[in-house]
C-alpha cells in the first residue's frame, strides 16, 4: 500500500533534484532505477543516523554485553565458567524456582482476570467514556510498579492495613501463620495489581479484532454462542492469549522495584539476588556473580520474548 502511494511522487522528487541534490530515497523499486546515478549520496544521510547509533551503542549495547560477559570472568579478569556453573547450585536454582513460581501464578491469574475484563468491555463503544477511562487506568496501573505499589499494599494488607484491621474486627486474622506480605507470597497480590491491567492493554486489540461478521456467520449457520466461542473465537484468540500470558510472565519475572521495596533483606527471587550480588559484590563467596545471574535472566527473557513474537505473528494474520 505504501509503495503504490509513494512511487508516483518519485518523479517529482527527481524533477526537484537539481535544486536540492542528495535527498532521494535510496530504496524502493521505482527510485532504485531512476536515482541510480546518485547512489553515492546516501552516505551523507547515514551520518544522520550516527548520533542515535552511538547513543544506543554506549548505553544499550555495551551495558548489555558487559552484563552478560562479566559472568564469564573472575576477579582478576581471567576467563572462568565457575560463575555460570554456580547458577546450577541449589541455592540459586531455588531463587529461579521462586521467581518462576511468582511469575507463573501472577501471569495465569492476571491473564484470566484481564481477559474477562476485555470480554466485559466487548459490547461497549470503543470511543465511549467507559472504554477510554478503563484504557487510561490500565496504562497507569500497568506502569504502577515499585515503591508506590508497595506502599499501597502495606496500607491495604500490612499489619495495620485497612483490610487487615477490618478483617481482624470481624474475627479473621490473615496473618495467623505469620506476616507473609514481606515474603515471596506477599508479592502475588501487588504483582497482580499491574499484571491484570497489562493483560487488558495487550489482549484488548485481539478481542476487538473479532469481526461481528464471524459471529453473524456462526449464528446464520445455526451455531450457538458456545459454538462461537469454542470453535471460532477460541482458536483465533488462542495465540494472542498465550502470547500475552508469556508477556505477563516476562513482566513479573523481570520486575525488581516492588520486590525491593517490600523485601528489604535477602535474595528470595532472582532480581533480589542480583541486588545482593551488586551490593555485597560476593554471593556464594564469588565475585561477578551478578553477571552470571544477569545472563541467566537474559536467557529466560529471550526464550519468553521469542515465544511471544512467534505467537504474535500468528495473531497478526487475523488482525487486518
Amino acid at each position, binding site marked *: 500500500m505504501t509503495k503504490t502511494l509513494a512511487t508516483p511522487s518519485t518523479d517529482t522528487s527527481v524533477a526537484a533534484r537539481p535544486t536540492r541534490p542528495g535527498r532521494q530515497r535510496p530504496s524502493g523499486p521505482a527510485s532504485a532505477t531512476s536515482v541510480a546515478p546518485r547512489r553515492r549520496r546516501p552516505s551523507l544521510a547515514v551520518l544522520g543516523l550516527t548520533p542515535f547509533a552511538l547513543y544506543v551503542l554506549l548505553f544499550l549495547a555495551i551495558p548489555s554485553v558487559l552484563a552478560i560477559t562479566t559472568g564469564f570472568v573472575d576477579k582478576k579478569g581471567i576467563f572462568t565458567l565457575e560463575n555460570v556453573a554456580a547458577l546450577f547450585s541449589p541455592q540459586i536454582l531455588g531463587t529461579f524456582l521462586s521467581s518462576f513460581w511468582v511469575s507463573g501464578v501472577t501471569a495465569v491469574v492476571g491473564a484470566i482476570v484481564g481477559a474477562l475484563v476485555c470480554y466485559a468491555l466487548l459490547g461497549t463503544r470503543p470511543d465511549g467514556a467507559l472504554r477510554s477511562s478503563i484504557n*487510561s487506568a490500565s496504562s497507569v496501573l500497568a506502569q504502577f510498579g515499585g515503591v508506590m505499589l508497595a506502599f499501597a499494599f502495606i496500607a491495604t494488607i500490612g499489619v495495620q492495613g485497612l483490610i487487615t484491621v477490618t478483617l481482624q474486627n470481624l474475627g479473621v486474622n490473615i496473618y495467623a501463620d505469620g506476616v507473609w506480605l514481606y515474603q515471596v507470597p506477599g508479592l502475588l497480590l501487588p504483582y497482580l495489581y499491574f499484571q491484570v491491567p497489562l493483560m487488558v492493554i495487550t489482549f484488548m486489540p485481539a478481542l476487538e479484532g473479532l469481526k461481528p461478521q464471524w459471529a453473524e456467520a456462526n449464528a446464520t449457520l445455526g451455531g450457538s454462542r458456545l459454538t462461537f466461542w469454542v470453535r471460532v473465537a477460541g482458536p483465533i484468540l488462542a495465540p494472542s492469549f498465550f502470547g500475552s500470558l508469556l508477556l505477563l510472565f516476562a513482566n513479573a519475572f523481570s520486575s525488581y522495584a516492588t520486590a525491593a521495596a517490600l523485601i528489604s533483606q535477602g535474595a528470595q527471587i532472582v532480581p533480589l539476588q542480583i541486588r545482593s550480588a551488586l551490593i555485597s559484590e560476593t554471593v556464594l563467596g564469588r565475585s561477578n556473580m551478578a553477571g552470571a545471574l544477569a545472563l541467566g535472566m537474559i536467557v529466560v527473557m529471550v526464550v519468553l520474548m521469542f515465544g511471544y513474537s512467534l505467537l504474535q505473528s500468528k495473531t497478526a494474520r487475523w488482525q487486518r
Partner: protein
Amino acid sequence: MSASSPSAARPSAVRPSAVRPSAARVGAAPSRTVRTIILSLVGLLFAVPILAMIEFTFRDGLSGTYTLKHWLNLADPAVNTKYAPLATALGNSLVLVLVTVLLVLVLLLPTMILVELRFAKLRRVLEFICIIPITVPAIVLVVGLVPVYAVVVKVAGSSIWSLGFAYGITVLPYAYRAIQANLQTVDVITLSEAARSLGAGWSTVLFRIILPNLRRGVLAASFISVAVVLGEFTIASLLNRVNLQTALLLISKSDPYVAVIFSLLALAFAFVLLLLIGRLSTVGAVRRPRIPLLQKR
C-alpha cells in the same frame, strides 16, 4: 443490525474499531448483567488499595482516629523543612524527565523520521533495537551500567542529569511505539516530496510539514516518558543515585504518611498524563478520515 448499516456501507478500509458495534452483535459481546458484574467486581478490587492509601494519610498514628495533620504538614513551613530531601529528589527527577524527553526528541524522533524517509530497509532494525529494553530489563541492564557509569562519572561528573542517558534507554520501547503509531498513519514520504516539489527546504519540510503531523505521537511519547521516569526506581537505587522513588522509600521509614501522600499525588499526575494521551489518540481517530489520501491503512 439496522444501527450498523450506515457504517457497513463505508469501504472496508475504515478501521473496524471506529465502527460502533450494534446491539445485535451475535455471540461475541456479553450481556449487560455479565458486563456489569465483571467490571464492578474487578473495579472494586482495584479501588481497595488506592482507598486504603487515602485512608492511611488521614490516620492519626495508631490511635484509630482521623486527622488532617499529615496533609496540612505539607503546607506548614515549620515541619516541611524535614521534607527538604524529598524536594531535592523531586527536583532530581524533574531534571531526569527533562533530559530523557530531550533525548527522545533529539535522538529518537529524527532517527525515526530519517529511517522512514530514506532507509525503509532499516525500519525493522530500528524496531528491533527499540524493543531490546523489554528483553533486557532494567535489573539486568544495571549490571552492565555499573561499569559504564564508573566511566561516565569520570567524564561528566556525578551530577544527576547523566542518569538520563540510562533512562532514555528504558523509555525507548514506549516512546518508539507512540511515535511509530503516529508515523504509520501519515505518509511522510509523499508529504515531504510534495513539499519539496513546491520549493520547500528541508527545515521547512521537517518543522512545518512532518512534525505538525506527528504532534500527537510526539506528545504521547513525551508523556509516557515522563510517567516512566517519575516512577523509575531500579537503576537509580542500584547506581546509588537519588530520585523521587528512592527518596520516597527512604522517607517512608521515618514518615510513612508523607511518603504515601506523595505516592498518591504522583499517581494522580500519571493518571492525568495518560488520560491526556488517550484523549490525544481519540481526537486523532476522529480527524483521520478527513485526509484519506495520506492514510497508509
